[in-house]
């Protein structure tokens, strides 16, 4: 066992839903999960930047993940959550909150089950996805958070799961 609890070829991921699509982030990048709270809006920012919140004395920027992925705006329900992410951008540790519709569970995925990312038309799409996993009923897209959040652009991942399925 490695010190982070993973065996060399089995990794842990946190899965979450945006609408009907399921995505996963590596657990090492997720600090914790928060319930929705009052957001302070920061004006004149990209549409997917929702504002900031107070995380134990630190001001944390919030991103509407749906909007970031080119989907429609998040409609807040009791299940809406914030994933506090800690990713490495330009050799700096950057923290941010990602708003998601639904948080599912932590699953263990063995390396041999990971399929290469889909190459669908636009080549940029693939760099945002490290790989995908097929379970009985559905596909899970494993996200490359660094790539996604290092750009200010909207990352068009809408409908990617259904594209692959068909």
């Amino acid at each position: 066992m490695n010190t982070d609890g993973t065996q060399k070829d089995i990794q842990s991921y946190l899965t979450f839903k945006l609408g009907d699509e399921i995505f996963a982030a590596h657990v090492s990048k997720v600090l914790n999960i928060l319930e929705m709270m009052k957001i302070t809006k920061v004006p004149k920012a990209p549409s997917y930047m929702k504002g900031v919140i107070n995380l134990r004395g630190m001001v944390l920027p919030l991103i509407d993940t749906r909007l970031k992925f080119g989907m429609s705006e998040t409609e807040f329900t009791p299940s809406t959550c914030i994933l506090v992410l800690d990713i490495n951008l330009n050799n700096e540790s950057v923290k941010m909150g990602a708003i998601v519709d639904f948080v599912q569970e932590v699953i263990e995925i063995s390396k041999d089950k990971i399929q290469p990312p889909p190459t669908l038309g636009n080549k940029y799409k693939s760099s945002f996805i490290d790989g995908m996993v097929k379970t009985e009923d559905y596909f899970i897209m494993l996200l490359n958070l660094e790539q996604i959040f290092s750009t200010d652009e909207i990352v068009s991942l809408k409908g990617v799961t259904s594209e692959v399925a068909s």
Partner: protein
Amino acid sequence: MDKLKQKFIEEASEHVAEIEQSLLLLENDPDNPDLIEKIFRAMHTLKGAGSMFGFEKISDLTHNVENIYDLIRNGKLPFTRNIADLTLGASDLIRLIISEENQSEPATLEKYENMKEVVSNILSEISKGNATIMDEKAIDESLMATYYIYFKPGINIFNNGTNPLYLVEELAGMGKSFVLVHQENIPDLENLDPEYCYTSWEIVLAAETSVKTIREVFIFVEDSAEIEIQELSKKDLFENKKFLRKLEKFIPGTNEIGFDQFKVLAESSDQSVANKLKKALGDDYKKTVRDYSISSIRVASEKLDHLMNLVSEMVTTQARLSLYVEHESSGELTTINENIQKLSRQLRDLAFEIVLVPIDTIIIRYQRLVRDLSKELNKMVVFQATGTETELDKTVIENLTDPLMHIIRNCIDHGIELPDERISKGKPAEGKIQLNAFHSGTNVHIEIQDDGRGIDVEKIRTKALQKGLIHDEANLSDRQLYDLLFLPGFSTAENVTDVSGRGVGMDVVRQKIANIRGEIQVESQKDLGTKITLKIPITLSIIDGLLVEVDKTNYIIPLISVSKIYSIDHSAIENKFNNYIVLDEERIPFFYLREEFEAAKNTEGQEQVIVIQYENQKVGLVADAVVGEYQAVLKPLGKHYRNQQIVSAATILGDGTVALVIDTNRAINYFSKLITVEESL
């Protein structure tokens, strides 16, 4: 024989010349042992050679003078004016003697006899019982002076029956004293071994004595203790009230102070030193004195960081308390809370004073640098700085000194053109380097702007192509080309001058700035100049803010920028021509914060116009309500929001929500641009 005699005369003249020269040098450097040695040897040689070649008189004369110098070089006789004159006389005489054909000129003989007498008199005085030397010693002893003594007995010193206290008592009994006991190394009872000595002493002693005599007190413990004895002042410092007061402030139990600090204390209490400084430095005096006081406190920087963190938490918690007290007010609790608020404000201010230091402490040396360097390169450059009262952490400033130095060097070396070139370009012969420092959110910006030739992007492109750093077809923006400047070893300067040097490139500068978590940006325009901006985060920033409400959301406006607040009915500013309003007979532009923060406009009721000011520009910000004052601990907004126009930091309110802090500088810049746009329409 004659040939040899001739040789002797030649050599003798040389020796005499050497004696004369040494004597002249000794005038300015009376304790120089090498010079004394030189004279001694010269005399010695003359003595030997003189008798060999039949110049007995020279031999006799020099024999005695040589003795005198032997005594001097062994420290048994001081070199005085008298001796100097005597020696000169003797060497003149020697010259005279060797220049004369025959040694029996009466005048010369007389001189010779006189000289001999003088010399032997001196010698007999000395042998009479060292009267001169005794006097010297007596004088030495009766000279008042203040000394610093550090005494740290070895840990095992009790083992041979020594009682260090007796020694301290003996010292104290020699004159006026101040004894500082250091017991901080004494472990607690569990770990204490009573056989060991953990104590040390620092003593200030004013007495008519000498370092030698003081050392004798410690004669039995010389090799089993750490002893330091140094002179602090040639006066009795205990007569100086200022010094005494400062001494009283030393509390036992604090860490060892050290000779240097005492010296600083002594000098800063010394009025005459202060006056000398004043004369020498003029305006810079105040700053130098401030340097003294800055360096007289030595606290570990981790302690300072800890202090600041605690202060920040205290401020935030106190805000929550205030909020609670507001809602559940009971008379007594309100009063108590007010007191806590006052105290926490004072504590915060004090903590800042300790940790933060204004930039002007390092600006002085840049003035110097510019002056010296421009002279050296035959350029005319003037250096100006604004915002020098802007404060930064002491450690950050220390890390900024070198990079700034290098940037300014670059400006003068590569940026500013020679006066002729400038004139031919229609610029004033004198170049200008402007340094601006100001706060922006949780950062301090330092801009260095010159009006020189700017950075030639073509040169960069060419050089980069040469070095194979870019492809021919690569279409790089100016910004990307400037970035290339930061690569190691990259220099487009024609000659690598001594000034900017090789190896201290912009890559090192960027690294040093990155080490303090800062950023560096370059902007430039050909022939107009270059502007380099450093953005450095401050560890902690707490400001007094004005809490305002806009569309049910709270915002903070730094109180320091608030000029005045007006309460105006909406109708008075509705449809105002070009968004100008006359307040107190001043025409001020105003802007609706509601609009800026993307909320619907009010249609009626009272509006609050908060006039903010930066330098000479005033702008009115319209908010719904002014809630009150608030001590805001500034938090950075993060990379995602670095392009905000009017907001650059946030704070956490008493109820846990985040409030944005309006950046006055940015806001005024932004709104001024809007005005210009509108006016041009």
